[in-house]
């Protein structure tokens, strides 16, 4: 479904992606992991067209995405930091994003799920960080797209919302969607992910199931297995 081909990206002197090749098949939950600054967000932003690679190509559903924008109608993205125009109300924002995408949406169901009903007419500037993240989630999940990209989805969520989020992710997966997640919370990965993509030094260092990773690192605990991979970078 997604192919990254020989992707290079440099920010000044810093090389973030260094000839990265990655093939993501349709369906399932992929966790993109790696130490801080390993290029997870850059990789995702390249796919979204927000960061323009120096070299290489990205194919989404068989077509190159570089310099295009129409393909984004078939993907949903949850950004890391939720920051919205402070003077708009929640419902206005939801309507605005709906207005921008010619697609049916099920925001009512999600608003109900995250208990946002009483916040609908409040201005976004007055909401707490966690509530903003819930609005962010509603905006991401309300469209029916084949690809869902979540950048640190758990930030600031209370336990109930976290449970709802996990259910939501499972539900989308059962519909046969492809979900990419970046996170640093290993228990979350352990619970939801089917496959792990581990980035190191701008390349794919490991790609496979959680079990394969545990086997390769001789470690039964995912957190330690990942730490094992990272520590190789420091060695």
């Amino acid at each position, binding site marked *: 479904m997604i192919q990254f081909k020989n992707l290079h990206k440099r920010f000044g002197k810093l090389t973030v992606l260094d000839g990265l090749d990655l093939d993501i098949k349709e369906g399932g939950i992929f966790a993109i992991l790696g130490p801080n600054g390993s290029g997870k967000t850059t990789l995702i*932003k390249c796919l979204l067209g927000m960061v323009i690679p120096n070299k290489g190509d990205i194919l989404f559903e068989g077509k190159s995405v570089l310099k295009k924008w129409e393909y984004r109608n078939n993907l949903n993205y949850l950004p890391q930091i939720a920051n919205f125009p402070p*003077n708009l109300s929640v419902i206005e924002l939801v309507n605005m994003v709906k207005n921008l995408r010619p697609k049916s949406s099920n925001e009512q169901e999600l608003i109900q799920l995250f208990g946002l009903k009483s916040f609908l007419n409040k201005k976004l500037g007055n909401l707490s960080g966690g509530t903003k993240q819930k609005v962010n989630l509603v905006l991401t999940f309300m469209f029916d797209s084949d690809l869902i990209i979540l950048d640190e989805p758990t930030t600031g969520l209370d336990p109930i919302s976290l449970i709802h989020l996990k259910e939501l992710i499972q539900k989308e997966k059962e519909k046969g969607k492809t979900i990419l997640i970046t996170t640093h919370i290993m228990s979350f990965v352990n619970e939801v992910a089917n496959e792990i993509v581990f980035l190191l030094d701008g390349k794919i260092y490991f790609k496979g199931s959680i079990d394969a990773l545990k086997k390769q690192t001789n470690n039964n605990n995912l957190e330690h297995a990942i730490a094992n991979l990272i520590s190789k970078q420091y060695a």
Partner: protein
Amino acid sequence: MLKILKYSFYDLMRSRWSYVYFIFYLLLGFVLLFLNNDVNKAVITLMNIIIVLTPLIGTIFGVMYYYNSKEFTELLLAQPINRKKIFMGQYVGISFSLTLSLVLGLGIPFVLYGLLKSTAIFNFTLLLVVGSFLNFIFVALSYNIALSTENKIKGFGYAILMWLFLAVIYDGIFLISLVMFDEYPLDKFSLIATMFNPIDLSRILILLKLDISALLGYTGAVFRKFFGTNFGMLISMSILILWVLFPIFRMNHKLKRKDF
């Protein structure tokens, strides 16, 4: 683009600062009319204020809006919209809302005072047109600076410096060069130098329409000959338009390879 424009405009129209700006002009209009009792004189005083203030406010609003809506812009960038349209929508939204504050804020007191029956209507309209141009020019310039500068504080600093340069320092250099090269014919030079600064251009444009160019001496006569005619008016308006188009062009060029 229209959708982004609509929401940027909507967002700004509800911000407190748009109202502060609007009320400032409203008060200014009323006070000037009551103190001057003469629409023509009020127009001159207003010109002096508008020519410095609109660029400053346009610059500050432009940079502030860009940096404050950065995360939201990222959310928009992930939607199926061309990035050019996002930024053009925001740009026109800011410029338009500032222009609305200016036109309504000054227009209301003047209309109430009986401007429509006065002879100053043309001058006053010119003042508003020039003020609107300055809004569009300086928001575009500040957007350019913000797009090229990752660091918020630096971006803010550069933008203010840009304003300071065009509003104050440029005139200083201009004056010094006039004094230094006193012995050479400078009318062509000063005419051209004026074109390179939108603030100067606007000021001269209005001054010459106000029939007080006799105060300006020989150079004034040359300017008068140029700007006073319809041809000169046309040229200077076109240059103001170029001052809008050029930064927009650079903005779009910059956007093509910008990482967010």
